[in-house]
């Protein structure tokens, strides 16, 4: 199945890209995605994604891993936000 992964702000800098389509076996979980990303992203990117202050959104809703994935899911890594 295909999952779209998005990296924002400092995590985009760390990952070296802003969006990536990742192919995973059926019944994959968030952990399988992280394993796949370890091979696809530049060195150090995974540490940045795993930092304590990084939040994960599944289909644009904040979701605490672990969670299962389905075809077409959108997973986003969000560093600390600030607007205004």
């Amino acid at each position, binding site marked *: 199945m295909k999952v779209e992964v998005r990296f924002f702000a400092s995590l985009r800098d760390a990952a070296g890209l802003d969006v990536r389509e990742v192919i995973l076996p059926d019944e994959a979980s968030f952990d399988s995605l992280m394993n796949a990303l370890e091979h696809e992203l530049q060195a150090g990117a995974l540490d940045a994604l795993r930092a304590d202050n990084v939040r994960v959104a599944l289909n*644009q809703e904040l979701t605490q891993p672990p969670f299962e994935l389905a075809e077409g899911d959108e997973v986003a890594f*969000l560093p600390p*936000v600030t607007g205004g």
Partner: protein
Amino acid sequence: MHREIRVQEQDFSVAAEYGAARERLGACAGAVASFVGLVRDLRSGAADEAVEALCLEHYPGMTERSIEAIVAEAAGRWPLLDVVVIHRVGRLEPAAQIVLVQAASAHRSAAFAACEFIMDYLKTEAVFWKREESRDGARWVEATAEDRHRVSDWNGGG
């Protein structure tokens, strides 16, 4: 309650938003509080380092919903008649407008509180990221400890 939330690259007109709200409100509102955030030319905390631009990034869809949640929370706390939030994204130069929050109510205490509440939550909860560009490079900005304290105060924290 009329609520309007926009995330956009283009600039906004405070005059147009205020005029439109007055048309909608007629004579039922006694109070319109508003706030505009502008790009300062000095990096926060460093008095002598000039900021050349502020780059705002967002997550289309999720960002708008994060603002809607903040406005809904404000509307649950105070009797508001009209709320407008406009937040710009993209590259903004010093003196540019970043954000407008405008809240109308029958009485001033609700209008002030809602306007300030929404700004405090935009600083800490809305899905935006900011990068300050200066001559020496760029850095990602985070919400300050004061920002987090202000949000904690709205929730009875100390």
